[in-house]
């Protein structure tokens, strides 16, 4: 544990390996508090995820974690299981605000932002209201009215799709400059950038960028965005876009211990797909088309976005 004179090598303490933007280090020179990890909603799933706030700037960061099976860290004179590597990267808060604006749109009226951004599950969402230039951000996705000195907002699907379209465009540009392989190929090819770039079509880039953006918006909005971008229906063989609302725990996942079945398969094929777990593979095979409607019956109010868009 920190400050116990063992060089921070923690006897049994959980240590986290993090990569933070340098700006956080610089910001911390001026502050004694105000950096905090909180749990907020993940708009794509309704589940909770970890975010980091810098309340002094203020700024929002998303936390991703790198996980690879059977890895561990040696951290100075200690061993830490899991081998996790956490990334904090700046996050556009509008994705989170959008989640609440869509939810609030059920009411069908203009509302002040502090009535929109409320969440019993994740009460820390009120911290979002402290972020700077919210009014400017909200213009991308809402209609607004000013009564007295108070602003009232209403979700605008039309403006949102336009905004998301721009997000897709800037993501496409970054995919190209980062030489990310976006074609529908075996996954390992993605790790040899600059290889087959010329053969990747513009549509592949747009679909890929759409998939990335879909990690930050609801399934419904993702579908609408797909239509807005005039993307053809993805062929069934593609692993994306993933169905976001499949409730895995109740699905008959391929038996974990059924080695007999596994052994009969061609090992070469297995190797190609080794980046997916058995359950993921099983999932890829499941027909998910009928599940959305069923899901909406059970959707918990706070978790699911049932509002008509």
């Amino acid at each position, binding site marked *: 544990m920190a400050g116990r004179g063992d060089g921070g090598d923690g006897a049994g303490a959980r240590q986290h390996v993090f990569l933070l933007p340098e700006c956080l280090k610089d910001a911390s020179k001026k502050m004694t508090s105000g950096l905090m990890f909180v749990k907020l909603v993940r708009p794509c799933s309704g589940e909770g995820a970890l975010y980091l706030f810098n309340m002094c700037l203020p700024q929002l960061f998303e936390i*991703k974690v790198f996980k*690879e099976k059977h890895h561990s860290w040696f951290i100075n004179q200690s061993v830490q299981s899991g081998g996790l590597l956490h990334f904090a990267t700046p996050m556009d808060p509008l994705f989170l605000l959008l989640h609440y604006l869509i939810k609030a749109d059920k009411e069908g009226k203009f509302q002040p932002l502090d009535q929109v951004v409320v969440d019993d599950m994740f009460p820390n969402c009120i911290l979002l209201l402290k972020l700077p230039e919210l009014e400017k951000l909200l213009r991308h996705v809402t209609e607004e009215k000013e009564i007295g000195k108070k602003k009232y907002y209403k979700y605008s699907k039309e403006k949102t799709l336009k905004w998301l379209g721009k997000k897709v465009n800037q993501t496409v540009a970054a995919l190209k400059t980062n030489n990310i392989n976006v074609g529908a190929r075996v996954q390992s090819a993605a790790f040899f950038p600059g290889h087959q770039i010329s053969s990747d079509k513009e549509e592949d880039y747009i679909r890929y960028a759409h*998939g990335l953006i879909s990690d930050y918006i609801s399934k419904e909005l993702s579908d609408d965005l797909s239509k807005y971008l005039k993307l053809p229906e993805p062929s069934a063989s593609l692993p994306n876009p993933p169905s976001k609302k499949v409730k*895995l725990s109740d699905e008959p996942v391929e038996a974990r211990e059924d080695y007999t079945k596994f*052994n009969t398969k061609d090992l070469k094929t297995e190797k190609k797909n080794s980046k997916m777990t058995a*359950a993921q593979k099983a999932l890829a095979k499941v027909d998910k088309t009928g599940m959305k409607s069923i899901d909406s019956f059970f959707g918990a109010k706070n978790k699911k976005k049932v509002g008509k868009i």
Partner: protein
Amino acid sequence: MDFRELERDNMGRCRLNSPVPAVCRKEPCVLGVDEAGRGPVLGPMVYAICYCPLSRLADLEALKVADSKTLSESERDRLFAKMEEDGDFVGWALDVLSPNLISTSMLGRVKYNLNSLSHDTAVGLVQHALDQGVKVVQVFVDTVGLPETYQERLQQRFPSIEVTVKAKADALYPVVSAASICAKVARDQAVKNWQFVEKLQDLDTNYGSGYPNDPKTKVWLRKHVEPVFGFPQFVRFSWRTAQSILEKEAESILWWVSQWCCEEGGGLGLSPAWEGCPPGRWSLSPLLTHREDLPTGDQEGLGRITSYFNESPRNCPHLPHRYFQERGLESATTL
């Protein structure tokens, strides 16, 4: 014998040799191959060759060389010194295979068992003699595994040499006895002067014979278990004796080997799943054919295999985009 090179780095393989006697480059020579330290769980295994001209074989016999196991340590040292004195017609070379090399070979993803390692080392030494210009016409080898297949293999490899592989060759042929003395002297010296790569505290050098059934050796092993690292590299991790101590007294480790992983150490009680192994990889290897003089059949300590699918992403209802899947990235949910 100059062990400085071995002492500088004893994690791999180290070759030492005498100068080649001039006569061995001119006259047809007989060459013997033997090894020392095959059975012990501690320290290196040493492979040695010894050679002399056919015409001087009687002189070698006159030294009264015998199977190194029948000689005391001081007799072996004396005989080795005599062979050095007779450096005008007796030459030798040896390979010290570090315990680390043995462990990593035997525990490798592509299994490299001790027999193959031994055979390849013997071949390498004979070739080394040839490369040095020794006119080898006859080779005698003490057997490792089945003499017939080994002999066939060596004969194929060296078609112009008359190869004889025989059990107890070290007692039958003086040139093999001489090789066995070289090997044993080198092994003893290497063990005695072993430079531990680890920075060990209160190291106890009372390791006994190093054979797994030696109580002193067992006590030493138990005393030097480190829960995370297991043992110092002086120990052959691939020996069953070592593995079973780790299973009880060290932390459990899971190795990532393509889809299959290998669990070893610890006692977490994951069910072994041999059925799940792809054929030929990570399966139980056939037992080695041991030499009768080996104290125990201890050379194949294997970790248990567990399935790759120990966990499923059941509690993750959202499949992230392929970009994230390919990079092992997901949204963090806890700290």
